[in-house]
């Protein structure tokens, strides 16, 4: 069989998908490294000309009131007198305008521009850390949402200010235990306009009058929720804004001279009331600054900034209140709030504009140096430009100050320009989608799906003798990649890897499509009969079959957040539908029931049956009972689901929590016994299946694994559960022993697993041969090898037909041996080969079993039940597939070859997703089972690779198992065939041909093309899901739920695809390895024939 082309093609298809995903994700997911250092008052900033920088002068304000009005768009805050017929959201906050016009030195209103993503959590992060939060802030706090990066709240706490917080409970999860007093209110229900606001108002004024606070944060949610529910253009919005107007007024009345009031929106909203994206309507909020003491040197002037970026609030507030600027802030101080140089006398304390700017510049420079030493995502040439600019500015500043001159306006301007360019560089790196890359990734993925589909439909052409070669496409691909490198070097002076990958992938896809088209044309020209079969493979009526429709529905469901939230149920629903479709479809084709001797037959409508009714009845009984089993296990698997936070009334499965957390000891015992029993059942079923097909007789490595290692592994696992379930304080005198066992048992299991895998790989054959010389004379009684009439006797063909002949001979003697176990003298077998019929599937099955138990080790104990269901469902699916193939093949509609129909493949891949959910996983980051990293390593790790891979294995356990077991779909009809036709031995030809998996060796060409087709179909279904979630992320990138639902879903889907494809390749490689081993075995057995 042609092993290399299959592997190369599959690898290439996977690589295409990876390239597409990589390109899209690098344009879509914004990644930033968190700098986990904090500023302190004692910090000395380079270049040091003062002993300390941050807390040098007394602060201008002692206290600050921060009123955050969620989604306070700038349009809401602006007051336009000339507007006589205001819309509901216009002119509803007159207080801001009144204050700004009547007391221009005390107050000012600015547009306040947020950075995308404009979602509340990211914005809170933004205006407290002064940085540009991205979707993935790679830091130490991957598991919790708390902000560990240096931030204003932390700095306030550090300098002894008492923080009081009320409002949106997001703050509480972002800053746990940072507040002196906190009154969080639930923010989840978007329909609820008043709970949070009224809760704040109950406490706000009494708190303000009291004296136990220095920083008061109140976060109102009503405006935002009103926008989500009704949109801005609604009477409810007017009401809400008027209420806010009253709130601001009352707060202003209660302010004291040493207090600063900041009223701000965290982001804007679109005309439909949504936010999350990057349009100006979403990013432009308002900020209003007020103090009873004069705040500004004069009335608004021309030089004041038109728009204030949101990050600028952080250094401004920090310097005004005399706390250090947070370490990773890239904001710029708001100059109008600081007195010009030499006029500091008028204001009590505080820094002059130049000093503030200088401290700010030094702090930003320090952050830039630290960040660029940690990460390399800032382009080097802009980094070196910024460095040169800073050193020029610092020498100029030092010279100016040293000589005591008054600073030139140019110096201030260039300091400001420096700060702006740092922020712009950072923003370009972290906070902007790269639409070009996204589009490139999307188009590569589209073509990859097409390529995958075509290679599954044309697998026989691709594998065939006249299939397209590999040299030219590889050359073209390399050439395209090189061209991209050279082009970039010439045009831009440096190269970016992703574009080279894109060019290579794209060109190879195009070359493949063109060659596939030519190969198909050639195939049509060569034999007309095939042309009819191939011609319509892209016709809509062939694509809209129910299984593909179900796959399409599944992909479409990824485009809606509600369906993604309910994904577990959705997939289960689809699996049900498809499972019910199989028997209904068979019945529709008259295949399910034995044709009754009715007038139909005499009319010639139905071809005469090729199979006895009893066999048909047996097969259809198997089919129906397996469908029942499948449906039952799918239904039961629903009880192992976890819960997303969006699902309001949902209880996570009780089996998800580890046993050690259960208090009730009786319940604990029950759970333990259930888990162990289902584990035992899994092991027993696997072994008995292998024994049934005679694979446990030889003495090879695989048999050793099945006989010893598998049970040992299960025992290890059971003991490990028992040990880890013991409560902390019981068995005091055995503590050391228990901790030793907690370490040793899983590690022993890991070792056994590794040993088993190595043994299976080295010696995958499970065939036991027994030659009895005393009966060898008997072989002459067997019929001489029969060649089929059409075969020309070339040496090649002879060899090809000799092997099955030998196999048949062995099989027959085996049969006879079985029949005459008691009376051996009657007819002794010449050669016995046990387990040859399942030579491919047995080691694969064992491999899956080992992997399954290994993966179970990484899960909570209760999941043993779910894994048992998984095994049952797999078996049911395999049997359904086998029976339906037998039923349709034996009644004349058999198309030839070993092709696995779409229905089965779609069911198989949906089952992988379904068990992703049924093992308690969800496509959200908080639901990752981090405990898996500590199985066998209770004291933690030193590196990151090992825990990361353990967690990955845990998360995608279902994907791994179904991907590795995928080739079983090809083997199972052949394995089951012997039982189907043994009953019908009377049919002559059917009985003769019952050679189970040896059929595959008769037809190596078909074997490889069927293997390729099966794998390509499986990859296609998973790839289409990835494609759909990529589309969802691209289309809905301004959706409210994009960072909560779609982006995590994309990450999980993409990594699931990655894991699936890798393990699918492992499975296919393993099958090819077995094939090589079988070939060698035959050569050893028949030295003459092999020549």
């Amino acid at each position, binding site marked *: 069989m042609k092993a290399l082309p299959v592997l190369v093609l599959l690898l290439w298809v996977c690589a295409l998908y990876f390239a597409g995903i990589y390109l899209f994700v690098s344009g879509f997911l914004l990644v930033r490294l968190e700098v986990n250092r904090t500023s302190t008052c004692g910090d000395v900033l380079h270049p040091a000309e003062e002993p300390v920088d941050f807390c040098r002068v007394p602060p201008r304000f002692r206290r600050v009131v921060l009123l955050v009005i969620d989604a306070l768009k700038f349009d809401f805050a602006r007051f336009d007198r000339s507007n006589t017929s205001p819309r509901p959201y216009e002119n509803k906050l007159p207080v801001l305008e009144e204050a700004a016009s009547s007391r221009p030195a005390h107050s000012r209103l600015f547009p306040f521009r947020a950075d995308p993503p404009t979602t509340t959590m990211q914005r809170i992060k933004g205006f407290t850390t002064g940085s540009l939060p991205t979707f993935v802030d790679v830091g130490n706090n991957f598991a919790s949402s708390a902000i560990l990066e240096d931030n204003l709240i932390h700095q306030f706490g550090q300098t002894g200010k008492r923080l009081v917080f009320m409002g949106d409970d997001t703050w509480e999860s972002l800053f746990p235990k940072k507040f002196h007093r906190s009154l969080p209110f639930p923010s989840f229900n978007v329909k609820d306009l008043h709970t949070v606001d009224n809760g704040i108002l109950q406490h706000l004024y009494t708190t303000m009058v009291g004296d136990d606070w220095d920083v008061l944060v109140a976060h109102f949610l009503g405006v935002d929720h009103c926008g989500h529910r009704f949109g801005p253009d609604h009477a409810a919005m007017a009401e809400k804004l008027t209420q806010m107007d009253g709130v601001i007024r009352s707060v202003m009345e209660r302010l004291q001279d040493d207090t600063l009031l900041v009223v701000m929106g965290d982001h804007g909203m679109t005309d439909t009331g949504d936010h999350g994206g990057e349009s100006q309507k979403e990013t432009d909020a308002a900020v209003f600054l007020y103090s009873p003491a004069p705040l500004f040197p004069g009335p608004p002037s021309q030089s004041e900034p038109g728009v204030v970026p949101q990050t600028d609030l952080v250094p401004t507030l920090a310097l005004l209140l005399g706390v250090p600027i947070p370490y990773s802030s890239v904001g710029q101080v708001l100059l109008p709030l600081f007195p010009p140089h030499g006029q500091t006398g008028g204001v009590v304390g505080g820094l002059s504009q130049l000093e503030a700017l200088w401290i700010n510049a030094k702090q930003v420079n320090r952050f830039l140096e630290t960040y660029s030493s940690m990460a390399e995502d800032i382009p080097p040439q802009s980094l070196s430009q910024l460095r040169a600019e800073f050193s020029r500015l610092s020498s100029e500043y030092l010279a100016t100050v040293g000589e005591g001159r008054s600073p030139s306006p140019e110096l201030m301007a260039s300091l400001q320009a420096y700060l702006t360019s740092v922020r712009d560089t950072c923003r370009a790196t972290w906070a902007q989608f790269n639409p070009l890359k996204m589009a490139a990734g999307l188009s590569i993925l589209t073509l990859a799906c097409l390529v995958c589909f075509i290679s599954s439909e044309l697998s026989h052409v691709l594998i065939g003798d006249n299939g397209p070669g590999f040299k030219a496409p590889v050359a073209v691909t390399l050439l395209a990649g090189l061209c991209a490198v050279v082009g970039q070097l010439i045009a831009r002076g440096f190269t970016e890897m992703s574009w080279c990958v894109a060019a290579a992938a794209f060109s190879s896809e195009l070359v493949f499509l063109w060659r596939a088209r030519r190969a198909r044309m050639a195939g049509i020209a060569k034999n007309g009969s095939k042309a009819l079969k191939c011609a319509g493979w892209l016709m809509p009526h062939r694509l809209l079959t129910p299984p593909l429709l179900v796959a399409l529905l599944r992909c479409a469901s990824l485009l809606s957040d*509600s369906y993604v*939230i309910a994904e577990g*149920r959705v997939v289960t*629903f689809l699996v049900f539908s498809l499972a019910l479709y199989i028997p209904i479809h068979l*019945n529709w084709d*008259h295949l399910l029931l034995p044709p009754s001797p009715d007038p139909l037959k005499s*009319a010639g*409508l139905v071809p005469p049956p090729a199979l006895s009714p009893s066999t048909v009845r047996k097969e259809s009984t198997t089919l129906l009972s397996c469908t029942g089993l499948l449906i039952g296990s799918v239904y039961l698997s629903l009880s192992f689901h976890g819960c997303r936070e969006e699902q309001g009334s949902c209880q996570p499965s009780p089996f998800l929590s580890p046993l050690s957390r259960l208090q009730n000891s009786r319940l604990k015992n029950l759970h333990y016994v259930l888990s162990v029993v289902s584990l035992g059942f899994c092991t027993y079923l696997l072994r008995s299946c292998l024994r049934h097909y005679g694979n446990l007789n030889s003495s090879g490595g695989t048999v050793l694994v099945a006989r010893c290692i598998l049970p040992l592994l299960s025992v290890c696992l059971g003991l490990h559960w028992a040990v880890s379930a013991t409560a902390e304080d019981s068995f005091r005198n055995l503590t050391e022993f228990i901790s030793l066992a907690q370490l040793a048992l899983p590690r022993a299991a890991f070792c056994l697993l590794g040993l088993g895998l190595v043994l299976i790989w080295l010696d995958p054959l499970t065939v036991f041969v027994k030659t009895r010389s005393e009966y060898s004379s008997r072989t002459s009684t067997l019929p001489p090898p029969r060649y089929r009439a059409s075969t020309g006797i070339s040496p090649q063909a002879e060899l090809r037909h000799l092997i099955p002949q030998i196999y048949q001979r062995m099989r027959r003697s085996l049969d006879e041996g079985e029949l005459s176990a008691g009376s051996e003298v009657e007819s002794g077998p010449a050669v016995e080969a046990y387990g040859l019929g399942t030579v491919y599937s047995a080691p694969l099955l064992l491999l899956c079993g080992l992997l399954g138990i290994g993966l179970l080790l990484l899960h909570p104990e209760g999941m043993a039940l779910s894994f048992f269901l998984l095994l049952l469902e797999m078996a049911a699916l395999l049997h359904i597939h086998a029976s339906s193939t037998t039923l349709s093949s034996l009644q004349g509609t058999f198309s030839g070859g070993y092709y696995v129909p779409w229905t089965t493949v779609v069911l198989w891949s949906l089952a992988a997703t379904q068990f992703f959910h049924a093992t308690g996983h969800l496509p959200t980051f908080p639901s990752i089972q981090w405990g898996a990293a500590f199985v066998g390593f209770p004291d933690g790790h030193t590196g990151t690779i090992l825990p990361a891979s353990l967690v990955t294995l845990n998360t995608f356990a279902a994907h791994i198992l179904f991907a590795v077991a995928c080739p079983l779909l090809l083997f199972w009809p052949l394995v089951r065939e012997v039982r189907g036709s043994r009953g019908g031995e009377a049919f002559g030809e059917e009985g003769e041909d019952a050679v189970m998996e040896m059929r595959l060796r008769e037809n190596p060409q078909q074997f490889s093309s069927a293997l390729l087709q099966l794998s390509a179909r499986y990859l296609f279904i998973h790839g289409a899901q990835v494609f759909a979630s990529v589309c969802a992320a691209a289309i809905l990138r301004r959706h409210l739920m994009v960072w909560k639902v779609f982006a995590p879903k994309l990450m999980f889907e993409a990594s699931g695809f990655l894991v699936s494809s890798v393990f699918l390749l492992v499975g296919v490689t393993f099958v090819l390895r077995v094939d090589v081993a079988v070939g060698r075995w035959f050569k050893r057995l028949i030295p003459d024939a092999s020549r």
Partner: protein
Amino acid sequence: MWDHEIRAMASTHAIIASSVFMATVLPAVLVPGFSVYGTHLLWLYLVSGSIAAVSVAVFWLLGLTPPTKKHSLGYKLSRLFRSVLYLFLSCLFFHTVVVLYGAPLIESALETFSLAVLLTSLTTLRCLCILGPNVQAWIRVFSRHGAMSVWDTCLQITVACTLVGAWVGAFPIPLDWDRPWQVWPVSCSLGAMIGFLTGLVAAPAWIHYHRKQLTYKCK
């Protein structure tokens, strides 16, 4: 070729459809507080009942039910008993299938069972009326060459439409639109009803346009 039967079918379907219409509109006019969403279960039972009554009456009048071989009263009684038993079993069957599809097991069992009753009256009752209490025949009808008369083809189409309608009706349930028709089982029963009405229209039309291709073996 089948003109007479198609006309009969069309008029039968018109009567059944009008009975659905009446069962929806009449109570809405007469009974205060009646609405399809608000008092959904009541509407469901009314519609099921009226469809059951009308179809039994119409098909009995048409004389479609396969002729019984014996005319003894005992045989007729046993047929009636079997029919009732089948109806009940079919309710249970639909209930089980719907629960397996993901309907809540315990809390809204009444709603689920009502949906099963509706599905039974739309599909099983029709099978009973046309084929009699003969499961073999039912299984036979739902295969490619199993239809033996125009009415069998019509049965295929309406039953398939009803079931597909109910299946599609489950799609909007998880969406967060908060509409009254998203409550269980409103969307499914509406879907089944719409599917059934579509089937009533589609069956005569389809048969009319394919009357040249249709060939039936007589029983």
